Each structure stands twice: as C-alpha cells, then as structure tokens.
C-alpha cells in the first residue's frame, strides 16, 4: 500500500501536511519559524502583531495544569514596523507563513496589513477572539457578527491575500459568526482561540497564579469544545477550517478533520511532546490512514457529518 498523501490545499495555499503552528507559540522570530518548518509543520503563524509595540502582561504569563495551559501573555509584540523587519523575505522559510494581526480599531488592522504587505506572507489571520487582553478581541467586542464583518471587510479591501478569521469557542452560535466572516470576504476560519478566561489559584499563596489573574485555556481541556465548534462551523460555511484546540496526536488530528477541518493547529501539544510534534503527528496520521484505507486528507474532511 502506498503512503497516504497528507498534502492539502488551504484556499489556494499548498501545504505538505495539515499541521499549522498557531499564533502565540514560538512565532517571535524567523529563526524559530525555520526550526518549526524543519520539525515538519505544514505552515506556521507569527506571534500576533499590533501597529504599536506592546510589552504584554507581567509574569507569570503561561502556566501548565493537568489538562493544558492557561495563558495571559497580553499580546506582547514589537509592533508592525519591527515585525516587518524581523520577518523580511519570509519566503526564506520553507513553509507558508501566516501573519496574525491585531488592532483595537478597524483602521489599526489595515495599517498593520499595509506595513507587512511586502514581506511575502501567505495569508493574514485576524484573531477577533482573545479572551484576556483589554482593547482587543472579545474584550473589545470584536467577536460579534457586526464587528467581525466590519473588520474583515476593511482588511479585504486592503489585501489580496487569503484572510483567516480566528473565532472564540465562547460564542454560543459560532456557525453564525463564521458565516458573517465568510460573507464579509474571509477565505478560511481558524477555530478556535483559547477558551475562557479561566483562573488557577495557588491556595498556599491565596492568589491567582497568572499576574493578569485570568487567562485563556488551551490543550486537552479545550479539545472536545474545539471539535464541536469545527463541526458546527462546517455546517454553516463553505470556506475551509483550520481546527485548533488540544490536538497532540495523529488521532486527535484525524478527529478534527472528520469534524470538518482542512488543516489543524498544534500549539499546546508542543509543550507535551516537544517541537518535533508536527512530524510525530504526521507519522501517526499516515499509519492510521494506511490501516484504515484512506489515501488523502480530502477523503476524511467532514465525514463525521455523513
């Protein structure tokens, strides 16, 4: 039997396999993206960039727990200009690289897109769904259909690149929100951002561990919710979905693809299994697909709906 084909076409972008590094993990420098590529990722996303530099929240910003990670990094980033410099000639990285862009006002997104226009990114991602940074995402009301439409429409006018919209799992009717993004010109949906916010208290210290007190939940705790979100979105839109949330094995990846994802995000799993998790997941997918007579990813997308 031939080795299954893991390649995918994500709104015109060719990926050698469906694994994608999500924003906020390792995406601080071109050198780390190269390393992620060397470890088998199909695509990678840079750490979210705002127009002005941001220091983010104080430490602790990331804390592991039994079923994943709790984080409130607070969108630290060096700003659009410095990001354009750090990721100059991004095509030097052997895999497609997605630019994650944040803003407090609609115009901010457009200004960042303009600054990064010459870098050679393969797509723009708009995380309108962060649960723990004042002025951004959910805390700025960006997770409503109206705001999503306004921001996506404005960015649509500013770039020819595919636009991915990253949604929160907190939204009850996530399919409607995905539809609003699709109608406004989004080319793919990234589902989902972290859940929450949540809190972990150290009982001896009698204080929340994260300096920001609350943070987004990722990892195993999020996975069944993420899978359900992808399942719902698949019923509502025609554009592809990047299923993200707690995937750390080939089986998890296939489950997410069967729910409707074309590509899958792998972030918290890096902590559990190391930076070579991308290669590990691909090998596990190949093995399972061979044993179960699947030849390509396409054959599995959304089959849990049939």
């Amino acid at each position, binding site marked *: 039997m031939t080795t299954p084909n893991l390649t995918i076409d994500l709104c015109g972008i060719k990926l050698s396999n469906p694994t994608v590094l999500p924003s906020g993990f390792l995406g*601080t*420098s071109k050198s*780390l993206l190269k390393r992620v590529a060397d470890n088998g990722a199909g695509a990678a996303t840079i750490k979210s960039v705002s127009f002005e*530099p941001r220091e983010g929240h104080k*430490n602790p910003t*990331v804390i592991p727990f039994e079923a994943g990670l709790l984080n409130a990094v607070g969108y*630290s*980033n060096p700003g659009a200009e410095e990001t354009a410099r750090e990721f100059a000639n991004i095509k030097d990285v052997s895999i497609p690289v997605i630019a994650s862009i944040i803003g407090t006002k609609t115009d901010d997104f457009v200004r960042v897109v303009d600054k990064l226009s010459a870098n050679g990114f393969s797509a723009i991602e708009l995380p309108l769904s962060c649960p723990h940074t004042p002025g951004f995402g959910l805390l700025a009301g960006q997770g409503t259909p109206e705001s999503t439409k306004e921001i996506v429409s404005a960015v649509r006018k500013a770039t020819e690149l595919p636009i991915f919209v990253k949604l929160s799992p907190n939204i009850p009717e996530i399919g409607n929100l995905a539809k609003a993004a699709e109608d406004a010109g989004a080319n793919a949906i990234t589902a989902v951002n972290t859940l929450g916010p949540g809190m972990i208290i150290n009982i001896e210290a009698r*204080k929340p561990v994260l300096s920001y007190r609350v943070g987004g939940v990722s990892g195993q705790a999020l996975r069944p919710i993420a899978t359900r979100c992808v399942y719902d979105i698949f019923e509502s839109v025609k554009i592809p979905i990047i299923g993200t949330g707690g995937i750390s094995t080939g089986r998890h990846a296939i489950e997410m693809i069967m729910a409707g994802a074309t590509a899958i995000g792998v972030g918290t799993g890096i902590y559990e299994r190391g930076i070579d998790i991308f290669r590990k997941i691909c090998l596990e997918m190949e093995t399972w697909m061979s044993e179960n007579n699947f030849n390509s990813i396409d054959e599995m997308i959304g089959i849990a709906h049939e």
Partner: protein
Amino acid sequence: MSEGFEQPVMMKIDKIINESDDTKSFMFRHNLDYKPGQFIMVWLPGIDEKPFAVSYSGDDFFGITVLERGNFTKLMHNMSVGEQLGIRGPFGHGFSIPADNIKDGSGNACVIGGGCGMASLTVLIERLQDNNITILNGATTKATLLFKNRYKDITIFTDDGSEGIKGYPTDALEDLHKENSYNIIYTCGPEIMMSKVYEFCKKHNIQCEASLERYMKCGIGICGQCVCDGQMVCKDGPVFDSQALSSMSDFGNYSLLKSGQRVSLKEYGEWRGC
C-alpha cells in the same frame, strides 16, 4: 514535559545569607532535583516572576543568590526568614558534567564567572571539586565580588583593581591554558565576556559551555520570548556548547526586549539594568 514543579510551589525562606553589599542568598529546605546550569522561576504572588540559577544545592536544601537591581529583587531583599516564595522548575538544559578524562583528574577544566554570573557556576564547581579545575571570578569592584571565600583556589579579578588582579579573567586565559591545557571551559557572566571566552576556545580548539541570559516568559519552551537564533534559551539552554554557539549570530550581539523587539546587547543591558 518538564520534570520538577510545573506550577509554583510555595516554599518558606529558611535562611538568608548576605553575600555582598547588594547581594543576598535565600535558602530553602527542599531536595531539588537540580542539574548545574538549570534555573528555577521565582514567583512573588501578585507581583511578577523571574528566573534564577540555583547557587546552593544539597541533599535537603537549595539556595538562590539575588542581586538587588529592580523592584522585584528589592522586594525579595526586604523579605525575612519564614516568608514564602513560589518556586517552579528546575527548567532547561544545564552544563555537561565533563568527559571521563576530567572526572578522573587527567584532564583540566576552567570555570570563569563574571559578576552575578558566578551564581550559575557554584553548583557546577562543587560537582567538579575533586578535579583539577581553575576558578576565575571577575567583578567590577571589590564590593560586588561574590563567593570569594567559598573556594580555596580561586583567582579574583576586578575591573578597578580594588581586589585581586586588575583586569578581566579573559586576560589571563592565554597563560593559564599554556600551563594547564584545558579540555573544557565553562562560563557565565556578561555576554561580552562569554563571547571572548568562546572565541578563545574556538581558537585553541577547547570545548566551551556558556550559560546565556535572555528575558523569559513561559520558561517551558513554547512562547519564543527568549529566542536566540532559533534556540530557546529557557529550554534548549540556558547552557549552550561550542557547536550551538557557533550557529548563534545573536550570541554576543542581540537580545529581545519584553515586547519582542530585537536590540543590541548594550540597549538590552541598559533596560535590564545590569
């Protein structure tokens, strides 16, 4: 996954040692599974969290050595015995405990510390104490010298000549190497000094291991804040060997500010206040 504590564990300060005018060590009663060169994250609840090397390590205790230089370390210096700090870790990749020929005493090792970098080398020195090692300890001035009485064979250097030899430990390397022909040199201190040590080792074909400092956030190899040319200082380091250092063009040159902006080490140093 990391060994040790994933979340901070509150530990009582058992003892405080005044090491110099501006430096104190904080001792804890706990057997930490610690390899020389690793670090722990120290949490002041509701305030902040910072990485520190373990500078004392025994069967039922460990300690960290803290230079007062900002708000966090000032708060630590104001703490008393019996008060609690949060500890998570240890994290990272430490020093390699050396090749057989150094263990059996037929090879030679040199340990070079600069300023508060000495705190990252003490546990290593103690693991190597039965071997023929040279210890070089440099500081800007007498008042900031650390651990000068902790070892009987230690050569002191101060920039101003207020104690020991006037100048830098790196000035003495050429002569010392002629005498001892080192197999390995370990270093921790200002990066400009470590970069000189690395260059010296390269020229003389000596194995070098340097412990790097970068601003850290997660401490567990996922956020990318402490990146140095594709290497995560918190997980792949903080100790890197000659081979890794040779591919790190940021080593001796650049570091990331808290925002992630990549700046010269000079600008980084001014921000960190060291």
